[in-house]
């Protein structure tokens, strides 16, 4: 058994920022990650990170209050306003900190951090490094963690969170991929920072490792998942692969064009046009496609950057150009890019407070796997990188306080041992069967069900059919088996194991979506067209029950700063 005071699960931006904070406060902390931290999905973020630095010539009177308002309005008033205010205030020092840690932001001529316009924002406040902002921030935080002396357990796949007899998180079980075999980690506290659940959909922009499995571990440990029905569809995923084409492409002036050659956003958001928030832009594109105005009547439209010119594309959007050329065979300097709305972000997640605390003492969560909630029913572009850093830092600080305040250390060794044994038994059961359900067939059916039945537009009967299908799949999961039983780098084992959590997470999305009889933000129902503040200005909580279908509850939204209004852009 290995001991650290604090275990951080996940080496993306939230996990690294939490670990650095705890380490510098004097905590013995370690990061466990399925991939080398610099390979995490945070690195795929492109367009930028929001902070009201007021560097842009058009944003001289921007403030954290205005950033707060834009975020609350963007969330369709489901975000907790106190949490949003905190995030937007923390945004200023955390941005300067990233710059001081060496993040290679793009610069204005006067040497200050460059900013660009983004969707749903009243001012250009998205700070960027070309179109590779996530990559630059992720390397910056990986490097700062190296500087701080945070140990990495690289290619360790966490399979369980362990609680002690008093109901406190006391460790994790993890698979050592390269050496082979499972190991118990005993700890005083655990931070989960494992990213979103994009891969529960077949049409996701997300990395292949963004399965939602980390959130499922907290869910299994008894912690509720919050607002899981709110799934963001990014307006511009590449047609063939769903690879992200940054909102920055529209921030720099790119057009959305339908099969009739129109800039159709004029019909849906006459003021904001292409820079309407993502839920609105995605619905608009999807409506055009459904009404037969896709390109050539097909299921895609064009993102046209040609009028920006070669120089601007090469300077501001070089990554987008490379991706279009390599993955779609299209050079955006010469041709418009075929795009389709694609699953992009999980607004919901592990229910936490503003400091990452969950209902389980000693268990913290931060980043996309968590739900504070600052994004409510629709996240604004540029706020996810911000969330990882702000709430990663706050979780690390809160974990330090928690660990410092413990009267008794080193508890839970027996429980970790037991959990390790249980893991071995689970694995033995999986390997003892020589046939059964094919986990990859179940995965494919699940991801297709999520895409088709819980997509941009939702409706009672289609969702009910989808939920029934997921429940049936969840039953079939009990009969899955392993084809490969080797110890070293066993992908069959990892992918089979994570499937169990993926189906459970998908069920929380499905049950929440079916239950919420209104349209709000990303959740748009064709049978309940309007937002219903009287009945539904509330968070959904999903608790795990033994038979797959979660028990749903509600939690009030923290209001107080801004009265809910109709969203117009």
């Amino acid at each position, binding site marked *: 058994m290995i001991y650290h005071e604090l275990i951080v699960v996940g080496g993306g931006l939230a996990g690294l920022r939490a670990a650095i904070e705890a380490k510098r406060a004097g905590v013995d902390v370690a990061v466990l990650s399925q991939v080398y931290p610099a390979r995490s999905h945070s690195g795929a973020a492109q367009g930028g990170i929001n902070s009201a630095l007021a560097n842009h010539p058009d944003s001289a009177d921007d403030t954290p209050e205005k950033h707060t308002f834009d975020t609350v309005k963007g969330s369709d008033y489901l975000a907790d306003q106190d949490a949003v205010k905190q995030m937007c205030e923390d945004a200023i020092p955390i941005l300067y900190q990233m710059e*001081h840690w060496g993040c290679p932001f793009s610069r204005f001529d006067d040497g200050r951090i460059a900013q660009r316009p983004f969707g749903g924002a009243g001012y250009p406040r998205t700070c960027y490094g070309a179109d590779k902002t996530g990559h630059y921030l992720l390397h910056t935080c990986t490097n700062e963690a190296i500087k701080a002396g945070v140990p990495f357990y690289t290619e360790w796949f966490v399979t369980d969170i362990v609680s002690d007899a008093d109901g406190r998180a006391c460790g994790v079980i993890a698979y050592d991929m390269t050496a082979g075999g499972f190991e118990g980690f005993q700890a005083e506290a655990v931070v989960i920072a494992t990213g979103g659940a994009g891969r529960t959909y077949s049409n996701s922009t997300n990395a292949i490792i963004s399965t939602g499995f980390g959130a499922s571990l907290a869910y299994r440990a008894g912690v509720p998942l919050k607002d899981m029905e709110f799934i963001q569809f990014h307006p511009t995923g590449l047609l063939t692969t769903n690879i992200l084409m940054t909102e920055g492409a529209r921030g720099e002036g790119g057009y959305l064009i339908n099969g009739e050659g129109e800039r159709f956003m004029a019909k849906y958001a006459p003021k904001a046009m292409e820079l309407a928030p993502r839920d609105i832009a995605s619905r608009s594109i999807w409506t055009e496609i459904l009404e037969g105005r896709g390109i050539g009547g097909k299921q895609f439209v064009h993102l046209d950057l040609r009028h920006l010119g070669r120089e601007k594309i090469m300077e501001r959007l070089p990554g987008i150009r490379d991706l279009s050329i390599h*993955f779609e065979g299209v050079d955006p300097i010469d041709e418009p890019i075929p795009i389709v709305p694609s699953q992009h972000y999980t607004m919901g997640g592990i229910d936490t407070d503003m400091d990452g605390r969950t209902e389980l003492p000693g268990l913290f969560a931060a980043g996309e796997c968590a739900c504070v909630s600052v994004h409510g029913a629709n996240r604004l572009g540029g706020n996810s990188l911000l969330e990882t850093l702000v709430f990663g830092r706050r979780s690390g600080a809160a974990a330090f306080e928690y660990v410092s305040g413990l009267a008794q250390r080193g508890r839970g060794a027996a429980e970790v041992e037991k959990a390790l044994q249980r893991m071995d038994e689970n694995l033995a059961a999986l390997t003892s069967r020589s046939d059964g359900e094919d986990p990859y067939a179940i995965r494919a059916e699940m991801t297709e069900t999520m895409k088709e039945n819980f997509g941009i537009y939702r409706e009672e009967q289609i969702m009910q059919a989808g939920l029934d299908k997921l429940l049936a799949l969840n039953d079939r999961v009990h009969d899955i088996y392993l084809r490969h039983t080797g110890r070293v780098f066993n992908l069959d084992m990892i992918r089979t194991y994570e499937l169990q959590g993926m189906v459970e997470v998908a069920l929380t999305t499905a049950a929440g979506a079916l239950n919420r009889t209104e349209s709000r933000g990303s959740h748009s129902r064709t049978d309940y067209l309007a937002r219903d503040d009287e009945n539904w200005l509330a968070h959904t909580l999903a608790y795990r029950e033994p038979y797959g279908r979660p028990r749903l509850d509600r939690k009030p939204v923290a209001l107080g700063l801004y009265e809910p209004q109709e969203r117009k852009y």
Partner: protein
Amino acid sequence: MPEATFRIHRYDPERDGDRRWQEFTVPYESSLTVLEGLFYIQESLDGSLSFRYCCRAAVCGSCAMYINGRYRLACQTNVKNLEDAPIAVEPLPHMPLIKDLVCDMTDFFAKYEYVKPYIMHDSKYPEKETLQSPEDRHKLDNPVDCILCGSCYSSCPSVWGEDNYLGPAALLWAYRFEADTRDEARKTRVSSFDNERGVYRCHTITNCVEACPKELNPTEAVQWLKGAAVRRRIFGRWK
């Protein structure tokens, strides 16, 4: 439906430790990346296949492999664009093996961490950002795009011949910080590469330039470091 034949390097330390080749046939509709082909094989043909993956969008560096005799990212390589059949897929050459297409990156990352790949700063930070002109920022354009995939390191004959040599990726990162106007490392970092493990072991063979899937130029960065290190030795000044 078109088909692609993959000829894959297999190695299982738990069986006999032997290396062998195995062929698989993968059907596809209109487009198939090598990484998608590997997933098809792992899911439908042989569950024991191991390979690294993450972003599938050429930004994380996980799936660098040796495909048809060239360093490539499996996710960025479409079988349509490969001329030779069958498609030969190998792990990064000259690296210790873990299993199948997975090689041991421990030394690679240890060397990366050895060059102190982070900003060092003694003086007080300004209240806001440190100013940096766009021109000075552009000096970093090349190295900050490195995805630590290991292709350059695997391709470098100087690394093959000398285990201790830091190699092109680590030195590219040393350059990235030495060239940054915000860095104040002075002697602290230079001692990590101005030595028998460092820049003088680069013999400008430029394999790294050819191997890099992001089209970066580690060789040039190493020459810059050499010049700077020599100037410091002769004139006692740095930068």
